[in-house]
């Protein structure tokens, strides 16, 4: 696995993550996001509908909470979860938790972490964790970690314990990784913990960087847990301790404004759960993510399709919980007779074929197709955002891009 940086400007890194797997066919643009799945399927989508989207991320993410209960079957299957789930040709990253759901706290011990599957809580030791990875066969995965520092007023003692445990787990994982035939081609990422305590963050980063890992997962920075200012401060301190040539994957952060801020402090990769969360509340992403041009190229670009930003959203009747300013609420009665596409100029299947009125109708009548169409649009819009972000970085237009996204 190799991170080729083409440009680093004021902390923002632009480049390509290559040779992600043995066959070296997949490369992932940086900064970029992963393709989010539940149990190795993109929620609401099958291979048919998924592939109406162009330029999918080269890496698909699976999470242990869904897969742990299928351990036996996966072991017997022997060919890993990518084949088991009928996934397309993609590289695979396995994380411990699913950032779209919050787990109950208080179940972590010195030797175990817990994940919640359909049958309830499952306790994982490092041995069990690694056995699972062997059955799943990801191309890279995070080591087992204690990230339970997101609750308000987590004590310093608790944060220190999280850092210590995570390092101990990493060392154990590394040993078992060497011994596991099925993981010979896989890479392991170390996990940086430390809650909201600067010294612990630095300690965790420094110590993790000493281990032979292929990259770093930044954990405990979940959107709900922390204000962006603090997050930026801590990540700046963390990335100062990490080698430049290894990728940094930030978990639990997906909102566009937070993504940009984290790119500005040296994050390379993000999870792709945000479009799914937007879909689940019946909303559609509609924020402006165009890159402005200089006057010379303006003529050329005026011919291209550009999504038009939605009018300012006043709170409609009963705004969904957690709705952000980057989206529109299709449940709202105001869309009942609106025969326009979700976002003018968007080239996703939903916008090319359907209207806001139709989506609204599907939501009102509780139809499955609502999820399919919204997921397609939200994923397309989010991927377009990352493409535009990279373009803005390449052309030194980040501040302008940031202004448009945040307006």
């Amino acid at each position, binding site marked *: 696995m190799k991170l080729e940086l083409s440009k680093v400007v004021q902390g923002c890194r632009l480049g390509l993550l290559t040779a992600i797997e043995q066959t070296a066919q997949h490369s992932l643009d940086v900064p970029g996001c992963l393709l989010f799945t539940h149990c190795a399927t993109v929620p609401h989508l099958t291979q048919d509908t998924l592939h109406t989207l162009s330029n999918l991320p080269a890496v698909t993410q699976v999470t242990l909470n869904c897969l742990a209960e299928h351990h036996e079957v996966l072991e017997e299957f022997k060919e890993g979860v990518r084949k088991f789930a009928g996934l397309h040709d993609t590289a695979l990253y396995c994380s411990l938790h699913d950032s779209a759901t919050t787990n109950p706290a208080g179940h972590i011990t010195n030797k175990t972490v817990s994940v919640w599957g359909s049958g309830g809580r499952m306790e994982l030791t490092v041995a069990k964790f690694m056995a699972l990875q062997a059955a799943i066969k990801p191309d890279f995965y995070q080591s087992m970690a204690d990230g339970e520092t997101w609750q308000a007023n987590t004590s310093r003692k608790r944060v220190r314990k999280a850092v210590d445990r995570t390092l101990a787990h990493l060392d154990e994982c590394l040993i078992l990784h060497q011994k596991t035939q099925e993981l010979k081609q896989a890479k392991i990422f170390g996990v940086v913990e430390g809650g909201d305590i600067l010294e612990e963050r630095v300690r965790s980063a420094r110590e993790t960087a000493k281990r032979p890992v292929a990259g770093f997962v930044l954990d405990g920075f979940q959107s709900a847990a922390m204000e962006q200012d603090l997050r930026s401060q801590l990540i700046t301190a963390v990335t100062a301790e990490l080698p430049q040539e290894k990728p940094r994957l930030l978990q639990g952060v997906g909102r566009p404004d937070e993504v940009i801020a984290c790119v500005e402090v040296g994050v390379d990769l993000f999870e792709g759960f945000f479009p799914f969360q937007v879909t689940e509340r019946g909303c559609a992403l509609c924020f402006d993510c165009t890159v402005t041009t200089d006057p010379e190229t303006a003529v050329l670009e005026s011919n291209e399709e550009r999504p038009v930003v939605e009018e300012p959203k006043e709170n409609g009747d009963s705004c969904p919980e957690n709705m952000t300013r980057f989206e529109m609420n299709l449940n709202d009665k105001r869309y009942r007779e609106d*025969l326009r596409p979700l976002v003018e100029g968007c080239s996703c*299947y939903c916008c090319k074929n359907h209207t806001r*009125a139709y989506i609204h*109708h*599907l939501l*009102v*009548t509780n139809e499955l*197709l609502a999820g*399919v169409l919204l997921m397609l649009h939200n994923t397309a819009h989010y991927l377009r955002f990352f493409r535009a972000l990279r373009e803005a970085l390449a052309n030194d237009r980040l501040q302008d891009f940031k202004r448009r996204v945040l307006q």
Partner: protein
Amino acid sequence: MAAVESGTCEGPAGMSAVKRLSHAAPLALRILAECPVSKARACVLTLPHGPVNTPVFMPVGTQGTMKGITVEQLEELGCQICLGNTYHLGMRPGPELIEKASGLHGFMNWRRNLLTDSGGFQMVSLVELSEVTEEGVMFRSPYDGKEILLTPEQSIAIQNSLGSDIMMQLDDVVSSTVTGPRVEEAMHRSVRWLDRCIAANKNPDRQNLFAIIQGGLNADLRKACLDEMTKRDVPGFAVGGLSGGEEKDDFWKMVTLSTDHLPRGKPRYLMGVG
């Protein structure tokens, strides 16, 4: 729009055989092959939104969507005609909005054929406290508790707004397990309602209204219904009032009786059978 063939259809045995459609119905049936042993036949039914190969099973897209699949997927599966449900769509989002969106085809973006039922069946099966009179079916809306009367005219008006390629008459539906005078009453009323539906159809040039043969499990009543309804100038016929839990042995007898007396040159739709 489909090219229209004026078909010949045979009336009941003994009558002068040829009946022509009095106006250009937007439907043509071409019989490709007929089984030498049974009454099975393979046809191409041409409707305003394209051809339909029969026999055909029509997927049910109740609320303007096939559950969970896109119209592109549906097309790729080879579906040539699917159903929309007049009762549900009439409730939500309502015929005015759908008409504004260029009909149900436009609203759901389906470019092939659509068949809509009359709304009558849902009303008697889904809704408590529905009452049938000569005027129509009276029921209480589950959405807002208001009393609604669905008449043949209103059913056709909604279906005209939906713009389906095939519309079903509003019939007086009785469960096949019911016996006695109610069955006969329903059969006669269905004939009268057919006439009202025919009169109410604003778009005979692009929407095909099908009659629905009733009569329960009574051969005499079925035959009487067939005699009457085949006198009407409709592009197609459905066999209704079956598949409600009756014995299979009774069921097929009514079906074969019906097809014995339905015109060869018009399509036959057996309702409620999948």
